[in-house]
């Protein structure tokens, strides 16, 4: 079987008994064991559980009770709680943390019959754009091991790109699904805020965090999104979605007429784009879609430049609050021989959090401090409304937007670690959609100097069906998503 096959094709192979789920699962586990030494894309591999789940899936396939995803392996970002399996969030703080329950996303995909291969590497607490901030060591980009895979869902992107998993879950707060997808040449979707339950996702910035699928094809993303999305009473910001709406996510091309679609090209994004190679690739992508009748017009999102500063105030403020729960008392890391309660708190947190997490906690503490709250936190919330309204206004005249995913191809390991502000600018094209809560789809759109590049389709709230529909049309016109890296055996 082809480790780079789409899950739609793998499901066909399972249905026709070309191979069993156990054989399929074993094939991916073998590849992980053989090749992941080069990538460090997994933190934990759950071989035994995976084979047991695969056997259960094979029984369902044999007795006719299987669904479209039954028996398909998947890798979960190590930020989704998994009962009985460590959820580290890439941090020393949670190195010993075994969640007493499953995240809703994990539970739903398991109910759909998917087989968990393991938990993927990530920047600590999802804070980072390079997967270098992991307690378990940096992950590598399978296209070039000296480059980063992107972050924070860098392990997920590297694993899918290298054929170590056919599909993976990720989470996106400011670009953590889309940017690694672009850097590794795969497809990734950040759904509308509220589309996918956050229950059991370790919290970073709760008003922005959103889980989503990362895979090889748009069709694969739509199949998995349909299974992971939906209302969840255990997430207070989850949105009601009808069964018909969730079904529609799995059959995205029905009713889509590209010749009636009008796509906006945001002026501010293209003005900020300095990579000539990427500009050419985006132009080619536009022409490919024009060939299918899609119309393009320029639109303006006037507050784009304020998005990165706005995000780093709000996300850091929320992070400083969310991460106050790690106190060395109830779970997670606890320092040795604390001399008093304050020492217990301070040393447990200081010894277990990495440099970037400490920077964000302190930035957030600053923004929320007396005297600075109005100038930073409240101001950023006001700017967030202006950014959200830019999108709402743009979508009055266009159906969606076409933009770059990242300003450049995957950068070198170590290149930006000493310059946090330069690292933050990597998220310039992904952050605005996160602040606005709108869905955005990252797709591979070609190569520049042997490294994959990504485009981004951004739509109005709850327009995933249309985004995925146009994404699928793009992938019938191009074959960038079918390219994969060659790893040395």
């Amino acid at each position, binding site marked *: 079987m082809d480790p780079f096959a789409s899950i739609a094709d793998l499901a066909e192979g399972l249905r026709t008994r070309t191979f069993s789920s156990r054989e399929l699962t074993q094939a991916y586990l073998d590849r992980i064991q053989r090749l992941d030494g080069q990538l460090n894309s997994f933190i934990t591999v759950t071989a035994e559980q995976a084979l047991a789940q695969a056997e259960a899936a094979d029984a369902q396939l044999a007795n006719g009770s299987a669904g479209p995803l039954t028996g398909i392996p998947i890798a979960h970002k190590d930020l989704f709680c998994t009962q009985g399996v460590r959820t580290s969030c890439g941090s020393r703080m949670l190195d*010993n*943390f*075994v969640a*007493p329950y499953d995240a809703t996303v994990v539970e739903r995909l398991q109910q759909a019959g998917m087989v968990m291969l393991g938990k993927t590497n990530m920047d600590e607490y999802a804070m980072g754009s390079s997967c270098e901030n992991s307690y378990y060591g940096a992950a590598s980009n399978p296209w070039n091991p000296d480059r980063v895979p992107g972050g924070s869902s860098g392990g997920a992107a590297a694993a899918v790109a290298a054929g170590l998993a056919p599909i993976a879950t990720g989470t996106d707060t400011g670009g953590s699904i889309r940017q690694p997808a672009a850097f590794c040449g795969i497809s990734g979707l950040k759904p509308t*805020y*509220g589309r996918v339950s956050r229950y059991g996702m370790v919290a970073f910035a709760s*008003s922005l965090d959103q889980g989503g699928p990362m895979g090889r094809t748009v069709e694969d993303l739509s199949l998995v999104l349909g299974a992971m999305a939906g209302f969840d*009473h255990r997430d*207070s*910001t989850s*949105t009601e979605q009808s069964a018909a709406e969730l079904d529609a996510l799995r059959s995205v091309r029905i009713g889509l007429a590209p010749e009636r679609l009008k796509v906006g090209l945001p002026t501010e994004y293209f003005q900020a784009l300095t990579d000539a190679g990427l500009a050419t690739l985006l132009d080619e992508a536009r022409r490919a879609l024009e060939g299918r009748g899609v119309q393009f017009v320029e639109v303006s999102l006037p507050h784009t*430049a*304020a998005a*990165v*500063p706005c995000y*780093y105030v709000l996300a850091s403020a929320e992070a*400083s609050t969310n991460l106050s729960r790690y*106190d060395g008392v*109830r*779970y997670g890391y*606890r320092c040795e021989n*604390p*001399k*008093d*309660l*304050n*020492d*217990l*708190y*301070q*040393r447990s947190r*200081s010894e277990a959090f990495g*440099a970037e997490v*400490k*920077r964000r*906690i*302190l*930035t957030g*503490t*600053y923004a929320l*401090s007396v005297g600075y709250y109005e*100038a*930073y936190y*409240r*101001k*950023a*919330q*006001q*700017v*967030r*409304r202006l950014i*959200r309204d830019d999108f709402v206004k743009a979508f009055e005249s266009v159906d969606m937007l076409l933009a770059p995913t990242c300003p450049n191809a995957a950068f070198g390991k170590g290149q930006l670690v000493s310059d*946090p*502000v330069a690292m*933050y600018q990597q998220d310039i094209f992904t952050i605005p959609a996160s*602040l*606005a*809560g*709108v869905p955005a789809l990252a797709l591979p759109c070609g190569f520049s100097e042997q490294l994959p590049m990504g485009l981004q389709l951004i739509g109005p*709230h709850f327009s995933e069906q249309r985004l995925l529909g146009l994404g699928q049309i793009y992938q019938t016109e191009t074959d960038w998503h079918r390219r994969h890296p060659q790893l040395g055996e």
Partner: protein
Amino acid sequence: MSVDTKDITGLSRLAKLALLPDELTQVTADLDRIIAMVDALAEVDTDGVAPLAHPLDAVQRMRPDAVTEEVDRDHFQGIAPATQDGLYLVPRVVE
């Protein structure tokens, strides 16, 4: 706005982080640059703009006031660093 090591020492106390001397110097330099970057917000005209806390302007959902889940203390305390008789243990607070 710029920050110095005294400001960062105060912030780290609030955030319950104990920074080593080298860390303090580095974090002060980093935060100074981060704050210079976010200071760009001041240039945006936000007169009369209401703060946005939720991208869909949703408000907290209400639910019936009914017991839906039982708290299984032993199960949850199984992952705690130190417990005794159902209590979490911390260093002595009251002499």
